[in-house]
């Protein structure tokens, strides 16, 4: 394997890992606090991309890319809260709520995908790149957009970690995650924490969508593959463990990039699932999952 192949694999692995990390950390936050999986999480990525496109593109409102990105993030935060209010909150107190919410969020995902198709049409869209051009690293041309994703994502994740670790609200989120009743007894308003988590998680997904929308085409189903990978990542990294999720995302991204190179695009998911099955057999709690 030549150096430029290696660099190409690493770049594509880290770009994918970044996207998976953004997706999976939101999924993991929701799982950690509500013990529920949000199957509409992939459509949040897709909506983030469409929103950014609509506000920035010359065929949309043509307000420029930075406005588009900012508006998309704000809209998706609200969208996350709305999704919680419509698809999760009404069922939260029911027995078997975790299963009911799988169905309601799946239904929501299907509805939103078809709505996006209806509203934006079947023609593929693409976002402008935030940065254009390429740099040469070790004789390999790397897109600046890819480089930006690789650099920006750890910064975003660091901010997320700082928010969870250093702020009062972050402390409350972790409290709800670790012990629901004790959080209530400490006076945490758990009913307010849930929508907040959905807002944060939707913004992370939207950011992934905006990044992806500059690299590939924006389609109504563009969130499905990243969502599937994010599921693999949260299980692989250890359910509910944010550090595990982030490390897991990059590991999965790299493994996938290697697999694409070695066995090709169509067989790469098979490799991912084999890895996942092996982890499940050898370490059922995931890389960094605790006992509990």
């Amino acid at each position: 394997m030549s150096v430029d192949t290696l660099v190409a694999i690493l770049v594509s692995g880290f770009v994918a890992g970044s996207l998976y990390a953004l997706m999976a950390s939101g999924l993991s936050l929701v799982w950690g606090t509500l013990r529920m999986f949000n199957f509409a999480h992939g459509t949040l990525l897709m909506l983030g991309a469409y929103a950014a496109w609509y506000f920035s593109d010359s065929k949309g409102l043509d307000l420029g890319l930075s406005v588009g990105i900012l508006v998309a993030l704000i809209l998706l935060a609200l969208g996350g809260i709305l999704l919680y209010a419509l698809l999760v909150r009404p069922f939260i107190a029911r027995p078997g709520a975790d299963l009911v919410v799988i169905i309601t969020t799946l239904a929501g995902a299907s509805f939103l995908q078809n709505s996006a198709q209806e509203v934006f049409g079947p023609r593929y869209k693409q976002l402008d790149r935030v940065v254009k051009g390429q740099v040469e690293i070790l004789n390999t041309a790397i897109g600046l957009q890819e480089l930006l994703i690789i650099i920006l994502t750890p910064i975003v994740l660091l901010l997320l970690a700082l928010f969870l670790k250093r702020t009062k609200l972050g402390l409350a989120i972790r409290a709800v995650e670790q012990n629901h009743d004790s959080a209530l007894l400490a006076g945490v308003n758990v009913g307010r924490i849930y929508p907040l988590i959905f807002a944060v998680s939707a913004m992370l997904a939207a950011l992934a969508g905006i990044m992806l929308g500059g690299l590939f085409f924006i389609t109504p189903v563009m969130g499905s593959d990243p969502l599937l990978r994010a599921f693999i990542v949260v299980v692989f990294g250890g359910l509910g463990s944010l550090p595990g999720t982030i490390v897991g995302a990059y590991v999965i991204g790299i493994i996938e990039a290697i697999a694409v190179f070695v066995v090709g695009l169509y067989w790469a998911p098979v490799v991912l699932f084999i890895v996942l099955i092996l982890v499940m057999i050898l370490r059922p709690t995931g890389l960094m999952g605790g006992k509990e």
Partner: protein
Amino acid sequence: MPLNVDRVSAGYGKVVVLHDISIVVGQGERVGLFGPNGHGKTTLLRAISGLIRPSSGSITFDGAPITTLSPREIVDRGLVQSPQGNTLFPRMTVLENLTLGAYAGHAWSQRRESLERVFALFPKLAQRQGQLARTLSGGERQMVSIGMALMGKPSLLMLDEPTLGLAPKIKDELAEAISAIAATGVTMLIVDQDIELLLGVCQRLYYIENGRVSLETREGERIDRQQILEMYFGTAPR
């Protein structure tokens, strides 16, 4: 009367645990609840804290009804509970756990002073403040749990089995701390199996059986070991 539980029934789903139970706790009073396991003591505290909603009856605190308030609103009013046993935030440090105790309302701005008071009461926690809660011993966890409740600036402090499952030496240490808390004049409602502890700290006791108060002592009335054994077993050899 700060706390007045009036003919409260409550339970989980179709299982009724509390049957028309009534207790009162006066201003500055320290009241003990005891009785066999599984007869509703913890359920009563959960109902008072708003974690479960009574199916009938009313609870008032400082003259205002709190029966339908959320746990947060109840904590905001100064009615704070230190729950039973292993109820900390396991993957947070001792310091973070204690800080969360001050989450509600006015307690937050005074969390540094409160923290000093808790550390004065439990010097061990000061040494272990950076340690994750799940790595603590049973006694230390109990100290954190009581410390968290104190961080909430309670005007009425409820302790649920503060000495459950602890070695005698650590039990004594906790009993001493509880007496020290009592000496500050805070109103207290304590659930425990350790009668000696309750007799040492409380002015009045309720014996709870089958979700009802089946016996209560009046203020100033002494109750001895023998009577208590008879309550538990119906009869006891002298």
